[in-house]
C-alpha cells in the first residue's frame, strides 16, 4: 500500500479513481446512461407527450395541447380495435409456433444429435438471423408469389399454395424471429443434467411425460426470454404484413401510416406495443430470463 501512495503523487488521477469506486462507476456509466436514458428513453417519453397533442383538422399542423382523443380512439374505433386484436393474435401465434418448433429441435440438438450435427445446426440457426430482415421478406415473397417457387414445387401435386394473407404473415414472422427462440431454448435444454432424464425414466416416466414434467418447467425462463423477442418484434412489425400479407393491417401499419399525417395518433398507438413489451420485460427480469439474452 505504501508504494501505492507514493505513486499517487505521480499519477494523481489514477490513484484517485482507484480509491473512489463510486466516482469511477459514475465515470464509466455516465456517458452510456446519458445516451440511453437521455436520448432514447427521453425520446420515448416525448413520444408519450406527443400522444396527448392533436392535429388541426384544417391546416393539419400538430397542435401542442392536451387531449385524450387519441387514446380513446384506440379503444373505440372498430378498425383500430380489430387491428390491435389481429396483431396480438398474430404475435401470439408466431410465439406459439416458435415454441412448438424450438422445443423438439432443442431436445434433439442437445440430447440426441451427435456433436458435429449439433454444432452444424447451431450455426445453421444463428446465421439466418444475420441474413437481413428485409432480405428474408423478399425471399419469402419470391417463394410464395403466384409464379414462385412454392407453387412450382407443389404444382405436380395439383395444389396451389396460399396467397399472401395472414398465414403467410405468421409464417414469415416465425421465419424471421425463430432463432431468438431456438437459441435460448437449446442452451437451456443443454444445461439440464442428464441424470434427471435417467431418474425420470427409472421412475417409469415415458418420454412425453419426461418432457412435460421435467424439461418444460426447467426451460420456462428460456422460453420467456425467447418470447420477448418473438412476441414483441412480431407485435410491432408492419413490413411483413405489407409485403406478404396482402391487405392485412397490423398495429405497425397504423403507426407508420400516421407518422406524417397525424403524429399524435401514431404516438398514441406506439404506446400499445411499448406497454406490452415493458410488462413482458418486467416479468422476464423477475424470472431471471434476461440473463439468457
Amino acid at each position, binding site marked *: 500500500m505504501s508504494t501505492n501512495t507514493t505513486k499517487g503523487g*505521480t499519477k494523481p488521477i489514477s490513484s484517485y479513481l*482507484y480509491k473512489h469506486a463510486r466516482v469511477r*462507476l459514475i465515470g464509466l456509466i455516465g456517458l452510456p446512461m446519458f445516451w440511453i436514458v437521455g436520448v432514447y*428513453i427521453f*425520446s420515448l417519453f416525448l413520444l408519450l407527450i406527443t400522444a396527448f397533442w392533436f392535429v388541426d383538422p384544417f391546416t393539419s399542423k400538430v397542435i401542442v395541447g392536451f387531449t385524450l382523443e387519441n387514446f380513446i380512439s384506440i379503444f373505440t374505433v372498430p378498425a383500430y380495435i380489430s387491428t390491435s386484436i389481429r396483431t396480438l393474435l398474430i404475435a401470439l401465434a408466431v410465439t406459439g409456433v416458435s415454441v412448438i418448433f424450438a422445443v423438439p429441435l432443442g431436445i434433439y440438438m442437445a440430447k440426441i444429435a451427435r456433436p458435429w450435427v449439433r454444432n452444424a445446426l447451431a450455426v445453421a440457426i444463428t446465421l439466418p438471423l444475420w441474413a*437481413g430482415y428485409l432480405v428474408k421478406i423478399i425471399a419469402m415473397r419470391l417463394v410464395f*408469389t403466384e409464379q414462385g417457387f412454392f407453387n412450382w414445387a407443389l404444382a405436380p401435386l395439383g395444389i396451389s399454395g396460399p396467397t399472401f394473407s395472414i398465414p403467410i404473415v405468421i409464417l414469415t414472422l416465425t*421465419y424471421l424471429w425463430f432463432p431468438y427462440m431456438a437459441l435460448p431454448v437449446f442452451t437451456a435444454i443443454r444445461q439440464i443434467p442428464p441424470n434427471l432424464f435417467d431418474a425420470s425414466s427409472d421412475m417409469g416416466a415415458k418420454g412425453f411425460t419426461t418432457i412435460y414434467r421435467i424439461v418444460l418447467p426447467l426451460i420456462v425462463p428460456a422460453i420467456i426470454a425467447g418470447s420477448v423477442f418473438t412476441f*414483441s418484434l412480431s407485435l410491432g412489425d408492419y413490413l411483413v404484413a405489407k409485403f406478404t400479407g396482402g391487405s392485412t393491417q397490423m398495429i405497425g401499419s397504423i403507426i407508420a401510416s400516421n407518422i406524417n399525417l397525424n403524429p399524435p395518433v401514431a404516438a398514441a398507438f406506439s404506446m400499445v*406495443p411499448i406497454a406490452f413489451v415493458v410488462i413482458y420485460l418486467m416479468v422476464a427480469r423477475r424470472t431471471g430470463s434476461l440473463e439468457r439474452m
Partner: protein
Amino acid sequence: MYVPLLVLILNSFNQSNISSWPIETFSFTWWEFAATYQPIRTALLNSIIVATGSTIIAAILGTLVAFALKGYEFFGKGTVNLLVVLPIFFGKGTVNLLVVLPIALPGVVTGVAFSNTYNNFLSPAGFNIGYFGMIVAHATFCIVMVFNNVFARLKRMNPSLQEASADLGAGLWQTFRLVTFPQFRTAFVAGALLAFALSFDEVVVTIFTAPPGVDTLPLWILKEMSRPNQASVVNVVATVVILISLIPVFISQRLTRAQDEGK
C-alpha cells in the same frame, strides 16, 4: 430456412425482368447493371457511413457499460453506501434492461420515437439533426451487441492482473492499454462487427430517421420493392446485403470461438 434465401440468390442471376420460378435464363445482366447504377452506389456508401459511425459510438458506449457492470459486481459487495444510492436507477438489472430495450422494442416504436423527437421537438426548436439522426438511432440499438460480447469476456477475466499492474505503478490508462484491452480485444472486435452487421441491414428505424432523399441500401430495396419493374435488381442488391452482413458475423463468430478454445 435456407431455401428462400437460395431462391433469392439464384434469382439475382435471372435475366428476366420479373422474378419467377423456375429461372429460364441465367445471366449477370442485373449484376452489371447494379454495379454501375448510381443510386445503388450512393445508397451503399450511405449504409457504410451510417454503419461505421454507429459502430464506433456503440463500441465505446457498450464497452463502458460492460466495465461499469463488471466494476459494480466487484465493488458492490463491499461498498454498502453504493448499494443504497445507485440501485434504484442504476441497479444491475435496470442497466441490463436499458441496454436490451432498444432491440427488444419493435423497430417501428424506436423509429417513431426518434422521428417524433427530431421532427416535432428538435426541428421546431431550430435544430436540424439530418443525417446524424440516423447514426444516433442506429448506435442506440447497436450498443447491446458490443456490451454482450465484452461483458461476457470481462466476467471471465482475472481482476488481479489489473491490480498487479496498478501495484507496479501503471496508471489506469496504461493498465487499460497494456493489460486489460489485449484480454478483451477479440470480444470487442467481435461485438463491433455484429453491431456493424446489425446497422447495415436495419430498415425499420431507418425509414423513420433517414432525412428526405437519403437512402441506405435496405431503404433503396424497400422503395424498389413497391415498384415491380426492377425486381431482379432488388435480388442482386439483396444478395449483396446478405454477403455484407454475413461476412462480419462469420468473422465475429470465428474470433469468439478461437478465443474460447484458446482459454
